[in-house]
């Protein structure tokens, strides 16, 4: 990953799609839209460029030490790496996860076909009909 370009209150992050998938970039951007203004452009095929600008860049009484755009850009990169790792692990363990889920459901018996007919004895059935 190239280092982000910080210009005034804005960070530009060029991201190589051979390293970071579109899904990882989108999930990360979604997470950051509460703290930053985010714009994604695609200057070239295989490159996504993310522009970040902090929403609260000025100190206030409630927030006397707002995060600088440099710190936010660093957090963005960390979170992006985290998301990409999750996606990679999800793909690598997809078959195993499917097997585990299938086994769990088969042991719980919820995947068995229901027994044909009524499981109650005929006396119970006739009593319930009389009540209705």
């Amino acid at each position, binding site marked *: 990953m190239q280092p982000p370009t910080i210009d005034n209150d804005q960070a530009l992050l060029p991201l190589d799609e051979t390293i970071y998938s579109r899904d990882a970039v989108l999930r990360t951007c979604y997470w950051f*839209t509460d703290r930053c*203004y985010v*714009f994604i452009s695609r200057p070239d095929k295989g490159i996504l460029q993310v522009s970040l600008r902090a929403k609260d860049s000025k100190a206030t009484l409630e927030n006397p030490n707002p995060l600088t755009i440099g710190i936010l850009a660093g957090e963005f990169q960390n979170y992006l790496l985290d998301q990409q790792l999750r996606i990679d692990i999800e793909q690598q363990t997809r078959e195993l996860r499917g097997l585990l889920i299938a086994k769990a459901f088969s042991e719980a018996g919820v995947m068995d076909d229901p027994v044909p007919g009524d499981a109650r004895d005929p006396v119970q059935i006739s009593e319930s009909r009389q009540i209705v």
Partner: protein
Amino acid sequence: MTLSDRTFELSDYVYATDAVTRAIEIFSGHCTVVVADVDHGIAVTVEPLPGAPTMITGEFLNYALNLSIEQHLSEA
């Protein structure tokens, strides 16, 4: 192209056209948005209306992006 600009090229690889259309409707009380077709997407020019919040362009882009992401991830 940066967040300081007025015109933004929204690649259809990232931004869903119907999500952008929805965002334009939602923000119509705060800004006018002119749309033009470009290669691989659309270009939007955002003009804030008088009295609109200063960062209305950023809010518009965030909204369009969030709607697009929700759409992409629900299709995945």
